[in-house]
């Protein structure tokens, strides 16, 4: 009996806008209009400004730990823009702020979250996103479930979930992918391969040549795109989302990008990665690339850039003012969201007295209203 090959696979890599700002017109056909590109460039610039300011807020003690998005704006913009605002559902981790903003999350919510305030997760009505997710790789299962609900109710809606290269090592990732594929739900798995899971580079995170190939094991359409190329990210995302919407099941996208900043403000990447690598990727900065493109097309000027930067500063300043102007939550908030309806008796006592010691909770029981006098 001859040995037969029973499976063959290949992974395509899509790039439309290269590092010099040169566009492949054929591939770019029917993707983004000039107006949309300018709009997204502006949003990316504002997001970058927010990132820089957030970093400084942390350093000056005005905010807790913050994970910078720097360098990954095109991945968030292209995918977020491809999903239908108000219809589709985003299930993020924590490095795709712009996708959330494009779907209507007020910018100060993200700051509020990292300022240690749950109200940053109190997603406004009509904004179809889940809050920032801290544990790695767990939220993808929720996206599969959300998409499953869309399928059961026959709604033409899609869930798009975000995660990093490191998250694909977690068991939950594989369970989410398998469920999504077995159930053929309208879900898009968007991996931001930014090369680093804190200090662990992709090469020792996995022995797979690409992240995209992991989807092949689950029988899912998959593609690798230049994650710093707004056009490629948009096109791959749109295709996957529309395939899902029309009943074609889940897809996987590996967006190859780079975390230009530290993992978070609590991290110091100089301890473990070569500055030369960072510089190489800084040259591929999605913002720089997009500006080059816009300039080549005469859609941009020095003056416009200056005005945009000033506007970005003003917007972010206002966002910070809003976030910092929100008063500290009341201690009742610790208790009030534990369950729907009336709190159990013990929780009511804890809330009313801010005590767990029974004597402190019910002083009248033992006639101990006053603190005993000192001798």
């Amino acid at each position, binding site marked *: 009996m001859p040995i037969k090959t029973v499976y063959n696979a290949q992974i395509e890599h899509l790039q439309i806008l290269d590092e010099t700002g040169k566009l492949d017109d054929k591939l770019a056909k029917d993707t983004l209009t000039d107006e949309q590109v300018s709009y997204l460039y502006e949003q990316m610039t504002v997001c970058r400004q927010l990132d820089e300011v957030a970093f400084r807020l942390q350093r000056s003690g005005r905010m*807790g*730990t913050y994970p910078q998005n720097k360098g990954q704006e095109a991945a968030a913009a292209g995918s977020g823009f491809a999903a239908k605002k108000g219809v589709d559902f985003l299930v993020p981790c924590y490095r795709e702020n712009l996708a959330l903003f494009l779907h209507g999350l007020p910018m100060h919510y993200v700051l509020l*979250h*990292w*300022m*240690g*305030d*749950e109200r940053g997760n109190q997603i406004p009505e009509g904004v179809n996103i889940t809050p920032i997710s*801290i*544990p*790695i*790789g*767990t939220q993808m299962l929720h996206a599969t479930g959300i998409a499953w609900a869309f399928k059961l109710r026959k709604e033409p809606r899609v869930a798009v979930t975000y995660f990093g290269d*490191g*998250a694909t*090592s*977690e*068991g*939950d990732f594989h369970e989410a992918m398998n469920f999504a594929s077995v159930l053929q739900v309208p879900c898009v798995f968007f991996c931001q391969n930014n090369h680093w*899971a*804190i*200090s*662990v580079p992709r090469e*020792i*995170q*996995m022995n797979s040549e690409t992240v995209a190939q992991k989807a092949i094991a689950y029988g899912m359409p998959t593609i690798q795109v230049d994650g710093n190329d707004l056009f490629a990210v948009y096109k791959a995302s749109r295709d996957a989302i529309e395939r899902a919407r029309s009943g074609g099941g889940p897809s996987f996208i590996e967006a190859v990008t780079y975390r230009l900043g530290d993992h978070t403000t*609590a*991290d110091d990447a100089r*301890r*473990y990665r070569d500055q030369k690598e960072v510089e190489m990727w800084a040259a591929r900065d999605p913002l720089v690339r997009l500006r080059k493109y816009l300039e080549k097309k005469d859609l941009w000027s020095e003056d416009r850039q200056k005005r945009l930067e000033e506007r970005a500063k003003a917007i972010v300043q206002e966002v910070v003012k809003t976030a910092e102007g929100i008063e*500290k*939550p009341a*201690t009742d*908030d*610790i*208790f009030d969201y*534990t369950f729907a309806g009336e709190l159990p008796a*013990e*929780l009511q006592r*804890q*809330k009313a007295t*801010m*005590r*767990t*010691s*029974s*004597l*402190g909770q019910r*002083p009248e029981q*033992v006639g*101990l209203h006053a*603190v*005993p006098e*000192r*001798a």
Partner: protein
Amino acid sequence: MPRSEMMIEKGLTLVDAINEALYQEMERDDRVVILGEDVGLNGGVFRVTDGLQKRFGPDRVVDTPLAESGIMGTAIGLAMAGMRPVPEIQFEGFLGPAFDQLVNHAARYRTRSRGAITVPMTVRVPVGGGIHAPELHSDSPEAIYAHQPGLKVVMPSTPYDAKGLLTSAIRDPDPVIFFEPKRVYRSFREHIPEEEYTIPIGQAKVVSEGSDITMISWGATVFQCLEALDQLPEDVSVELIDLRTIDPIDEDAICQSAEKTGRVVIVHEAPKTCGLGAELATIIQERCFLHLEAPVQRVCGFDTVMPYYKLELEYLPDAARIVEALQQVAAY
């Protein structure tokens, strides 16, 4: 690893002490391996394993893929095959994926194989709140693991105890969860012996002797208790006990003290309901009922989800709450 000048002059932090214990055990026993996320080149996100990969190489201090169940499950395999793994889970909030491996496998292997297979591993986990950290970086789940038979649970509060207890844990023939209170990581320094030493697992420590009230705590809240003692009127004499080991509980130590004082306050960060305080209070009423002068009091975290950091200090037991409980118990 030779001590730095700072350590020689000012003593060791909790981080330094744990690092020194790991170093010495790795020197002493080449079966000891460290595995976890960012523990190698980066030296851990809290720098607890700093310098160890450089000294012992990437085969003994291993940066694993990002998968807690993977870390725990393979550590169990390493232990079963004769190694002495010391897996790190980066924060207590990420123990979730490893729970199955810990509870359904590590804790049960000795019993279900009737002693044929054992899991001598030490799981290091930073624990607790109070450091302005993001969500799921501030919980205190020690009672969950104490409730699981077959696991030992340790939580030191000082550099001296950390070094001695970690050494014991690594040499222990059974799985030990070694919780490291983050709030204490760098909060003070202490002069401790440079040579290796052990502190038996299961032994509490009397931090300060007293005769009126017994106060029991562990981990970072030991320092809130000390702060409370400073604020207390001089005529109330409190015996402060640092449990150090969560499971097995040093019943004799707490009962001896409770019988002496007849009044007990238990302080912990974890939520009150089904927290370790409930078990301690039960032991005390079972064994010391006739000695008690007041109901045993618990000053704990509330029975809520740990809030984000804007409200974490309102959630965590502080000196004021502890003082009030002590005074009420004293006056009862």
